[in-house]
């Protein structure tokens, strides 16, 4: 592994991580606003929508950024991945298109907001499940070569417990992370009703997603043992990740610093969970190396031309310098500005 290819895979991994957090939030918010659509009393739907309106477009750019980073850094992996992912990838695209379209429409056509909310709510947990499939597909065993063409083996895919563990994890952790973030968001927006609802949801979905995480490890041991063994090499970090998870849980039970009657410190929980995801995905990512698609493509064999990599990396640096103020301004306007957080209309 050269430093260049390591650098490239790190950037890609970073995009995936940011997208995972932002998209989780996005998809989960859609789901929760569907669940609470009939409860006039709580502002839970409003809160979810207020978050969702300005962010989905920015979130969507990240998925494009991931695909572009994959294609431009690892064109060698593109060929196989593009071929095998034709069907699942197309399904994701179709759902995403429906979802984004109807999400926007529902802000404009208020009379139809219900029907439209169902579209974005239901797709809100199917899309993450499908997206997550990409991971186990790269673990090997699901791809076969027929007449020189790589094909996805749907029979193996649909009967693998590991796949279902990943799907379960995708859905439960989407709901967990988003309810946690929404709890924090409504706490900052001074909406105690909504805060109570989302805190409760986080407490239900949290343990489920931990369970799913454990199921992934158990099934991985049988179906992709190479990965399992390598992940256990980093056992201390894995333990650290579990500890971070426990801290997050604990944080939801200690009394609030600012408000006497409120229980829980959602900001602390969010930070702890982010650390937990970082640690766990670091271990996963490191164990996955050097393979991009086991055993056919490594980050070395799929790597782009060095000249292209250098030019790309330069644009990354310039691009981030230019974009950073934009992101900061955006964050200030929508995540921090009390006038926006507190307004009644979404």
């Amino acid at each position: 592994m050269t430093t260049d290819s390591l650098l490239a895979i790190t950037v890609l991994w970073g995009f995936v991580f940011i997208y995972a957090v932002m998209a989780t939030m996005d998809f989960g918010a859609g789901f929760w606003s569907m669940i609470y659509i009939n409860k006039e009393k709580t502002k839970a739907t409003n809160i979810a929508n207020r978050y969702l309106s300005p962010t989905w477009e920015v979130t969507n750019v990240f998925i494009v950024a991931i695909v572009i980073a994959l294609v431009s850094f690892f064109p060698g992996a593109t060929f196989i991945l593009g071929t095998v992912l034709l069907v699942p990838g197309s399904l994701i695209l179709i759902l995403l298109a429906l979802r984004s379209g109807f999400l926007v429409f529902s802000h404009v056509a208020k009379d139809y907001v219900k029907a439209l909310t169902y579209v974005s709510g239901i797709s809100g947990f199917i899309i993450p499940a499908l997206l997550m499939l990409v991971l186990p597909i790269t673990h090997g065993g699901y791809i076969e070569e027929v007449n020189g063409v790589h094909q996805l083996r749907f029979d193996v895919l649909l009967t693998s417990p590991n796949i279902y563990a990943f799907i379960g994890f995708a859905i439960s952790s989407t709901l967990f992370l988003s309810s946690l973030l929404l709890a924090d968001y409504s706490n900052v927006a001074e909406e105690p009703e909504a805060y109570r609802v989302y805190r409760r949801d986080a407490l239900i979905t949290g343990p489920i997603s931990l369970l799913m995480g454990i199921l992934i490890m158990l099934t991985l041991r049988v179906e992709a043992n190479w990965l399992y063994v390598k992940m256990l090499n980093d056992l201390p970090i894995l333990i650290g990740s579990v500890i971070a998870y426990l801290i997050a849980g604990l944080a939801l039970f200690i009394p609030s610093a600012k408000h006497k009657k409120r229980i829980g410190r959602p900001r602390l929980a969010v930070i702890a969970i982010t650390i937990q995801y970082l640690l766990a995905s670091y271990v996963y990512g490191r164990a996955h190396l050097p393979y991009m698609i086991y055993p056919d493509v490594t980050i070395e064999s799929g790597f782009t031309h060095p000249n292209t990599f250098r030019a790309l990396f330069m644009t990354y640096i310039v691009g981030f310098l230019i974009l950073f103020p934009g992101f900061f301004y955006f964050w200030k306007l929508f995540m921090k500005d009390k006038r926006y957080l507190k307004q009644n209309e979404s």
Partner: protein
Amino acid sequence: MDDLVIARSLFGTTMGFHIIFATLGVGIPLMILCAEILFQKTKDPDYAIMARRWTKGQAVLLGVAIPTGTIAGVQLALLWPGFMEVIGKVMALPFQIEIYAFFVEALFMSIYVYAADRISPKMRIFSVFLVLLGASASAVLITNVHAFEGTPAGFRIENGEIVDTDPWAAFFNPSFFISAAHVAVSAYMTGAFMICTISAFKMLKNRKNERVYSFHKKALMLSLVIGGIFSLLTALNGHESAQMLHEYQPEKLAAAEGLFETQDYAPLAIGGFTDKETQEIKYAIEIPWALSFLAGNSFKTEVIGLNDFPEEYWPPLFIHTLFNGMVLIGSFLIFLSIAGFFWKKILKKPRFPKLFMYAFVIAGPLSLLSIEFGWIFACTGRQPWVIYRVLATKDVVTGSTQIGTLFILFSLIYVILGIAVLLVLKYYFKRHPVENELDLNT
């Protein structure tokens, strides 16, 4: 049908659908910016209302532009994995830089739409300006990939391996500037004529209501000025595009003009259909010597005919019709905007005759049609190559065989989104007629 044909149909359908919303996403922000600036200059609240209403419409259009664009981007890798492998190694820069353009547009569009009431007028103008910049940059950059397909540069293929990679040379490939400019100015012109269509339509419906009528007349005049300027630029630059074809893709120009024999003093054929058997254009009007002049600014220019190329390299001959359609519409719209401006500002007539109004109403759809013609001409005219003289389309297509079903599914989605976007726009503007906003201001 074989898989290659289905894959091409699927991708062509995706692009044909995306381009409608993408083009408007480049053109309408320019109109919004103009309205915002006019409002700051004249303090006429009508312009603020225009900006607000166009922004609302644009925000709805983005709900289709972005997901279909996402589909286009991912589909490139899914349907043409062999193409994207080469692009990833050589021509990754425009895609990468495009991401930054998307971010700029997405961030500032959200700010402009959702925080309009909390930011200063200066910041509002700056935000729309960045939206325009982001959208234009993404159009320019994606066109650059298309330009590279026509005039590849910055690499060689040696024994199946890509060598001598120079990503910046690929980026600044010979047709980049001309193609990118053509796409940008044609998008601005389309945005303007779409506004022209809407305001002319509303004027026809509100002849009696003087207040509403004059609101739409202001929008119409603005769109005629912007549309006029950019249709002129489109035509001038289109002429350069044709010269670029003459130099770099002569068989495409020959097919566009139905020219079989290489000759100087070549005639320009307008209309008609190319007949492969008799090697002539039927039912066309021929302007002697004009093609030579067009291709090289001199009647003596030798234009290469199709017979100088092996027939397997010939582009499909129907692109002649697409090319004609584009040029005809472009010329008509230049004429229309100049005539409209002349009628109103020089002759100082208060009202446009009906015939004029009907012409204004169809200007926007014609402009969009021209965009479709232009793209199908450019992409189909490049066949059988996906990268001209380097990579054949049939060699890069995916090996998967389930494309037929996907073609149906995606087409269905486009139909649903297309209908939904029209209904939503209709619903919103019915619910919020401009009268309400005008009343508030008087």
